[in-house]
């Protein structure tokens, strides 16, 4: 099997170039295993991020044959011909397959992704029924892998857009029965939910079955109602 891998060394390469590596076509190998084979046995200078290799740490997102994928969960057997591996689109490239995700972290902080409560902390847990948990659970499954940003046609053009994962995580707290916060200002701003043109690519790209597109559409409704009825509290 041939891997066509995008290489870029800042200060050396003017722009990314492809390098081809022949790797054993093993049925049990993920794309990440093939990249590690290259790194360990063929070319020690190839750089990429990875860690848990079980689809939960979110490090190894790359563009595989044009689609954003977690390379630890995408297998050589999923492809027939040469496999092209590139850095995730929509982000500045730091080196080879490594992209700069600091803009996402800045956006994440903007939506106050923590539980907002008033008053003293009690000694015991806040009650939350399984149904109340279910109301936000799927949005809490985001692993910050950035595949949704890479798939998002809006984010690629407008890096100021909060983006799918940050909005989904804001909704994760908004819909949490324990949360008393208000994230209206940041979510309803121009670079908030209204930036989304509802293409839905984010949801298709998510390897963890989070539905950021739904989070965004739901909040558009909330925000629209809020602007009509400005004094309505989110929760009675």
């Amino acid at each position, binding site marked *: 099997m041939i891997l066509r891998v995008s290489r870029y060394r800042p200060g050396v390469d003017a722009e990314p170039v492809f390098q081809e590596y022949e790797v054993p076509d093993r049925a049990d190998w993920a794309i990440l295993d093939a990249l590690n084979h290259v790194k360990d046995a063929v070319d020690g200078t190839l750089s990429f991020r990875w*860690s*848990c290799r079980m689809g939960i740490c979110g490090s190894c997102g790359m563009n595989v044959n044009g689609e954003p994928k977690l390379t630890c*969960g995408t297998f050589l057997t999923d492809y027939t011909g040469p496999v092209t591996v590139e850095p995730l689109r929509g982000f500045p490239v730091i080196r080879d397959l490594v992209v700069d995700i600091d803009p996402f972290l800045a956006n994440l902080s903007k939506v106050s992704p923590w539980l907002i409560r008033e008053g003293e902390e009690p000694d015991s847990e806040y009650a939350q029924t399984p149904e109340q*948990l279910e109301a936000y659970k799927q949005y809490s499954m985001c692993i910050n892998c950035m595949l949704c940003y890479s798939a998002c046609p809006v984010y690629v053009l407008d890096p100021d857009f909060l983006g799918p994962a940050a909005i989904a995580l804001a909704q994760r707290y908004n819909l949490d029965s324990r949360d008393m916060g208000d994230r209206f200002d940041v979510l309803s701003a121009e670079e908030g939910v209204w930036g989304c043109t509802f293409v839905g690519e984010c949801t298709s790209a998510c390897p963890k079955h989070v539905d950021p597109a739904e989070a965004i559409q739901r909040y558009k409704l909330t925000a629209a109602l809020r602007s009509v009825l400005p004094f309505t509290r989110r929760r009675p």
Partner: protein
Amino acid sequence: MAAEGTAGDAAVDVLIVGGGAAGLRAAIAVAETEPDATVAIVSKVYPMRSHTVSAEGGAAAVIGLADSLDEHAYDTISGGDWLCDQDAVEAFVREAPRELIRLEHWGCPWSREPDGRVAVRPFGGMKQLRTWYAADKTGFHLLHTLFQTSLKYAGIKRYDEWYATRLVTDGGRVHGVTAIDIRTGRIETIACRAVILATGGCGQVFPFTTNAAIKTGDGMALAYRAGAPLKDMEFVQYHPTGLPFTGILITEAARAEGGWLINKDGYRYLQDYDLGVPTDKPKLRSMELGPRDRLSQAFVGEMARGRTVDTPYGQVTYLDLRHLGEARINARIPFVRELCLSYEKIDPVTDLIPVRPVVHYMMGGVHTGIDGDTPVQGLYAAGETACVSINGANRLGSNSLPECLVFGARAGAAAARYAVQAERPDGGAVRSQGADERRRLERERAGRDGGRERISEVRELMRRTLEDAAGIYRNRDALDKAVATLADLRERAAVARLDDRSAAFNTELLAGLELGSMLDVAEAIVASALNREESRGAHQRTDFPARDDAAFLAHTLAHRGPDGTPRLSLLPVTITRWPPGERVYGR
């Protein structure tokens, strides 16, 4: 460039190395204990990538009325084969409930009872239901909750994707940390009054492990080189149920929910290893809910009897979840199903899961007191990096997440209190040691053409050496041989080839530095295993098959000697209320 009034390139009061559960919890504790103190986290990955993310089954803390702190303490101490320090265990079980409730208040999506209370599940070696869980992604939810909550504290500065390479110490005190900014290759020495090491474990020292690639024992090696001893390094936990080839963990929660371990004849073999008699419903502290050391040893027994299954990836037994049904599997252990479908192309609803023991956790680590303090003034450690010790010779499943929280919080608070009254870091030491370290790193980065071997080849030989000598069963001959092999590998690592001379994101340089950490840790493991001439918990010597309390009711301390090899001594175990007894499971 030194800023006005600071000793080095930058200065903070408390610098934390590692951004997983222990490091993040420590950072929040610093911010809460001394709001005016400055705190920073240096982490080689973004904090939400830390290996805490992979923990699945749950976090133990007494919550039910039927349960008691003493019972949690007894389960932990007997599970640890009486090598735990009982004062630390008592603090741990007392503070764990408060820590898990704080996580709840911070938003952790714990699974719930119908009435809204937090739900608990059984777990191995625990005789009460006390394991809190968030389905089977407990570590993931705990880590993201901590990380997102940490964003609330504007005072917590982060050095994301910085790799710490050296502690600056002088006069028995810590003064700073040298680290590489991985993105740019910039090398900086950060002056600080206190350091908390929270880099997790070192499973990558072994060839077959559940541990993420980043688990290379960096914090242990930093402390060891700075003169702090490593404690109980011979105690390596094999988790009984890893997926072959990948080593991906199938959580103990699968057995807590009622899964069975069967051999090639479909026989629940644990009944032949003094772990009780099979029952349809899971029975606490019995059979599949026995402790991990005993279950992994039983696997080796089955292999010796020819009752395991031969596969291209080695011998396996099976985990049978089929009788649980699809609905329960989806509700309680959905990640198990997801992992099996992705990585084994099997469905546990209808198929048996092939499993084999896999290196999972280090009971040993940096020797600390109950507040994470080490013998080096200003140096603290918490979580898997540390050995406080609550895990003794064998950790119980679901004790490690609360350990990160309880002792992360303690270390954070203690380091903050220390830092605000401590003297300023010694600018001279920071500058001169920082310059030494910079020269060393720049030399490494200049490349090494002469070497015939790659870093990855030496690493692979180290891993095989550890598995052969320091696996589930050990003996003197194999350990002696490993000491010699590791000494040889250290020399070969020093001249191994480095092709990448780039400043930006030079992961080959990091791999070389990580190999250096792992070799230090590997030598400590092997030397400690050689020294302990008894069998206790996860340390089983075929040449000394019995526990020997007269000689070895004691911790092993490994100091790095002047020639770089470990110097060993023993430290008595602290016993408060539970005198050593027999470990009894299933009867």
